Every structure is written in C-alpha cells, then in structure tokens.
C-alpha cells in the first residue's frame, strides 16, 4: 500500500474520481429527462458516472500493482524546471495587465534563456529584446493583431 503514495496513477485516479463525483453531483441538479426529451443533466450524468467508475479502477489498479511494476520515481529536478517555467509563464500573463505584452514577454524570454538555460547575458538579452520587438513589429504593426496592453503601454 505504501508504494501507492508514490504512484502517479493513484493520485491522478483520485483527482479524476473527485472530478467525476462533482460532475455527477452537478448533473443531478439539472433535468435528466423532460417532456421534450433528455435534459441538461442527461449526458453529464452518464459520462460523469463513467469517469467515477474508471478512475476508481485506476486507483484500484495502482494499489494492487506489485511493487516492481510501479512506474519509476518522479524526477524532481525535471519537475522543478517545468514548474519554474510554468510559474514564469503565469507571472508573464499577470504582468501583462501592468506592463503590456512586449515587456512581459521580454522578461519571460530572458528568464528562460538566462536563468533556466544558463546562457550568458550577451545571448539572453538579444533574444529577449529582439523577440519582443519582433513580436510587436510582426503582430501589432504588420498583421494588425492586437496584443495585450498594460496600464502604461
């Protein structure tokens, strides 16, 4: 049982079982079958129910699996890098409200090149600034596609 705690199938199965339960609960509040035919709750009730059953099967499979067949342990380094990149992406979106697309994007590009890829500033800065200018020139000026604007830009 202890090895289940380190198994992705166990946790993802539990999360999906919770999602399925939420879907079923929500669908039960809507009409299942009315005078004109199936209501808004008909379809979600069925796929939500299927989701609960399948995800519990996944959890059971993860618990009953023998130790040797459990998936390899999580590579925390890789996971950390991916999550750091994702956090930078989220921060870039949040910053757009204030500084607009060009500056937020330049900061994201700089972070990926200088911090994550550990490239020197002479590589990171041209990619960050050049990229932001190129995006602005191509989309805003040439293609007339609106980019997110901040409070100042």
């Amino acid at each position, binding site marked *: 049982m202890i090895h289940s705690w380190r198994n992705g199938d166990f946790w993802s199965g539990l999360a999906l079982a919770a999602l399925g339960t939420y879907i079923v609960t929500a669908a039960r509040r809507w009409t299942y079958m009315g005078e004109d035919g*199936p209501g808004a709750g008909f379809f979600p009730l069925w796929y939500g129910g299927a989701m609960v059953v399948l995800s519990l099967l*996944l959890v059971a499979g993860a618990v009953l699996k023998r130790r040797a067949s459990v998936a390899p342990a999580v590579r925390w380094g890789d996971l950390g890098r991916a999550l750091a990149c994702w956090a930078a992406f989220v921060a870039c979106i949040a910053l757009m409200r204030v500084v607009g697309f060009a500056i937020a994007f330049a900061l994201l590009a700089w972070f990926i090149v200088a911090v994550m890829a550990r490239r020197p500033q002479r590589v990171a800065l041209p990619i960050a600034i050049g990229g932001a200018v190129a995006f602005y020139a191509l989309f805003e000026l040439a293609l007339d596609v609106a980019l997110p604007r901040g409070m100042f830009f």
Partner: protein
Amino acid sequence: MDILSGLLQGFQVALTPANLVMCVLGVVLGTVIGVLPGLGPSATIAMLLPLTFRLEPTGAMIMLAGIYYGAKYGGSTTSILLNVPGESSSVVTCIDGYQMARKGRAGAALGMAAIASFIAGTFGVLMLMLVAPPLAELSLAFSSPEYFALMVLGLALVVLLAGASLTKALLSMLVGLWIASMGTDLFTATSRFTFGRVELIGGIEFIIVAIGVFAVGEVLGNIEPKKPADVLPVPKGLRNLLPTRDDMKRCRFAFLNGSLIGFLIGILPGAGSTIASFMSYGIEKGLSRHPEEFGHGAIEGVAAPEGANNAETGGALVPLLTLGIPGSGTTAILLAALVLWGFKPGPLFIHDSPAMFWGLVASMYIGNVLLLVLNLPLVAVFAQLLKVPGYAMYPLILGVSLVGVYAVGSSLFHLGLLALFGLLGYAMRKLDYPAAPLVLGLVLGDPMEKALRQSLMMSQGDLAILFRPIPSVLLALAALLLLIPLFKKLNAVRVQMVDKEA
C-alpha cells in the same frame, strides 16, 4: 458536379496568387516544424489557427493543410540525419534511414524519402478525390442515431490506439467531453459547469485547450536540458541526393505498399500515420527477397514508411470532410478550424462548399510537387535548423501561443486558461495520459450530445432508436473494440501498436 469539373474548379481556386502563397507558406512551415523534434503539426496548427481568422478561409485551410502534410516530409530529415524522429510518423524511418546515412548514403535516403512521400502523397490525394464524393452521398442517409453511433465508433477507435492504458485513454476522452459541455446548454439554456464565471457562459474555446495542451504542454515537457545533437552531414549537390536507377527499381513495390496501406489506415480514426508507416515497413520486410538487409540500411525501409505516412493524410481527410469525424489530434484541430470559419464538414460539405473542398484537394497536388521541389535542393538548409537550440525556440512557441489565444477574444482570462491547460498538458504527458482522446472528446462532445439528445427526442426517450440496423452495427463494433483489452493475444497486438506510436 463530377470529379473532373470539381478538380478544374479546385485548380482555379488553388492557383490564384494568394492561395499559391498560402500553399508555399504552409508546406515550408510544415517542413520546418517537421524537421524540428519536439514541435509537432498539432501544436503549430493550433497556435496559428487564431491568427488565420482574418484570412480568407480557403487560403487559410490550404496553409494549415500544408503544415499538416509538409511536417511529414520534414520529419524524415531528422530521422535520417540524427536518428531522432522529427515527427512520430517518421520513427520507423530512423531504422534504415540512419543506417544508410552512416554508410555515406544520406543523400539517397533523403532523396528516396522525398520521392516516396511525393508518390504516395499524390496517391492519397487522388484517392481522397475519388472516395470522398461517393462516401458523402452514402452518408446523406444518416440521421442523428447513425451520427451518434458513428462518433462513438470513432472515439472508440481513437481511445483503443491512443495509449497502452485503455482506462487512461477513456478518462482523457471523458475530460474532453466535460470541457465540451461547459457553458450554456443550447437545448434548455441551462448554464453548466461555469463556476459562476461570466466568461465561461459561452463555453471554453477549443483553441485555448488545444494550444495549452499541445504547445505550452510541449514546451514544459521539453524544458529539461538535452545533449546537443550530432547531425550527420548532407551531401552537396542535387545529383548526390537522387537515388540510383537500381534504388528506384528496388522500391517499386514499396511505393505501392506505402500508398495503399497509408491511405487505408488513414481512413480509420485513431490509427494514424505512425501505425501506417510501421505496417507498411512490416509488409515490405515480410515480402522482401532480402529481409536480412532491413535494419542495416535497406532503401525500401525508407521508401515504404515515408510513403505510408504521406498517403495517410489523404485517407485521414476522408472521414473528416465527408462525415465530420476527425481521427487524430491534428485533424480535430482542422475540423475546429472549418467550423470556426462557418463550414459544416459532413455529407453536404462537398456540395455546399465546393470551392473549399476542391480548392483544398487541388492545393494538395500542388503542395506535394512543391515539397518535392523544395525538399531535394533545400534539404541541407532545413538540416541546419537542427542546430537551433531549444532555449531560443521555447520563448517563440510561448509567445505565439499567447498572441494566438489573445487574438481569439482579447481576454486575459483566456490567457489564464491557457496556462491552466498548459499545466494539464504537461501533467498528462508525465502521467502517460494520451492527449488525442481529450481533444477529440472536446471536438465531438457537443455534436455527440446533440445527436444523442435529438435521437431520444425523435423516439420520445426510447433507447431502441439506437438499435436500428446501422447504429446497432456501429455501436456493436465500438463495444467489441473496447473489449479487446480483455483478450490477451489481441491486446498484445494493440499494446505493440501503441508502443510503436509512443
């Protein structure tokens, strides 16, 4: 409209300067992303789709389709020179293509890949042109129950071949159905799964999910440092890229095998070009007079799979355009594109939108010629792309994703959703949940629910309507497919196919 006059109209559409430019743009971009490992046609088409909203739809579709089949040409370059497939459909080309390159025959391998792709790709388009109109006529007899059953069968096939774990593939599809049902129910005006957010009343745009799962998820999945690639050199001069007369003679059957297998597998939802290329390779090896050469640089081992993965494109477009049923993540995005532009892929598509259908078909003939002309002399240039470091590509992909999603509704809320679906895509990748069933569930969720509810309205709630002859056969087939994992021998074959795809 007969086929010949349709094709004539198609060439009139495809040969306009604007559409020719779109075709060139599509196939060049397709080749580039095919060459680059880690960036696939699904991600590229998803990212560019919102930017095509201002374009004329036929030209935009010609470009997106060009990316789709162009990527398959480009994928072979990486397989042959680097022993790393640029596209999953070029995996099998690594086996003999890389061995040929190591023996100093990279030119012949690259040339044969381009020629086989051209021959089989053209065959695929020819078959699409011949098969699609009669199939569309036949499917005119379909009504809601038949459509519902057809979509169930399509999803069952995709789920069956999407991943080693059928449970995970089914769960991925169910999540897709859930996302599809967010927003206002059009039958009853009930708000479903909106979490009290006004932005969700209209539902979640397909494109946000597709870009998040494919493009952002792909960047997050590839962000870990990798060793620089050792690229084998491309011989200089066009003459060194042309296969010998003997090579061409040896590959006669491979061209035919790749073309037929590729097209037939392409028609089946879920099977896809990777399985097509593996099957044609297996058949080629099985029927060869010198099977011992396979794996050591047999040129037929390049021609057959490269032909198959290109002929598959024509096959995959048959159910997409005539029934509105996509068979893969990429074709699901193409379906979404057509719907967003106001077209209705299905039995009436060819009749209602002849310029789009025949223009697309004609552009694919032109695109295949362009790819052959471009790939042979420019392969050395494309190979240089393999030296572009990942850290320069990732900001570009994330930037285009942000611009693309923002172009959909000028909403920062959409960008927040993009980040969320990017994380979902990464988690799915790491936990071995296939993305294709999710995307297909999302695309087919709405029409599937509509078809089911319309069927039950027709029968006043009686499920017997789903057991009319055609739907019952289709549903029985779907059930049988989903029971395959219970049979050890059949499941072993399924897992083998899925492993090859992976």
